[in-house]
């Protein structure tokens, strides 16, 4: 259910989500959907030749899950911006935890908007990705 303006105070948290353990199948399905078929994300032989122990997680996969986690909360039609910055790589078997909060609630151009800061953490606490999103709220 999409949230309403009165329920969205600055500092309000996004309902948290855990993702994983993530698998090679997650990467392959995302790669097929996105069109980025870089073999380092699914081909074990290629990944090892590149110096990795396993296929490297594809950043746009967990960024995409992070983005739709936010739109599941505030509504797919309402998103106006999404930005992600990757911090450290993820690997098959990782469990990722999403957290986030509203950092700004404001009027702009006659629309009510909120800005969110989102975090994707790996087990053990490392930051896989940071993200920022803007939504209109109806």
């Amino acid at each position, binding site marked *: 259910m999409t949230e309403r303006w009165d329920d969205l105070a600055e500092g309000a948290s996004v309902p948290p989500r855990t*993702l994983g353990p993530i698998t090679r199948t997650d990467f392959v*399905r*995302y790669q*097929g*959907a*996105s*069109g*980025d078929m870089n073999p380092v994300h699914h081909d074990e032989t290629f990944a090892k030749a*590149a*110096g*990795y*122990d396993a296929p490297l997680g594809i*950043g*746009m*996969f967990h*960024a*995409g*899950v992070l*983005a*739709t*986690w*936010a*739109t*599941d909360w505030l*509504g*797919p*039609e*309402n*998103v*106006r*911006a*999404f*930005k*992600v*910055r*990757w911090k450290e*790589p993820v*690997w098959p078997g990782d469990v990722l935890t999403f957290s986030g909060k509203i950092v700004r609630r404001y009027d702009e151009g006659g629309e009510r908007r909120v800005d969110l800061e989102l975090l994707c953490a790996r087990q053990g606490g490392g930051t896989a990705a940071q993200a920022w*999103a803007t939504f209109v709220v109806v």
Partner: protein
Amino acid sequence: MADQSAIGAEGTAFDLEIERGKIREFARATLSSHPAYLEDPHPVSPPTFLTTMFFWQEGAPGHNPWPLVRLDPKRGMHAEQEYVFYGPPPRAGARLTCQSRIERVFSKEGRRGGRLTFAVMVTEFHDKATGALVARARMTGVETEKPPETEP
């Protein structure tokens, strides 16, 4: 080493059609089952969906200026990605005209030492019928001096 002369290089414009089946596939691949993606006959696209522009940009020469930057693929990583929408994200049935350009190429010292080279490509998506700006994507790639670190 990245090629500074790529700054300002523009690809030729290309068309992109937003399709319901592709939205459904992408929503499922990003683990959303929101009915606005899966049930609506004219679904809106997910926030990172426009990355599928590569299906339309590749396959004909001249549309993609990114190779002109010549980042070394062995030392290259996707550093940052941004999408800005000037209204709801485009819906299935939308026909967009897209054009990419190299906005910046720059270097700085990394936190753990070693020089990092960044390149930024901007892509604008206009509605083919009205000419209105629908979305802007900004992709940042980084090249490290040495290959990226692996897990210990």
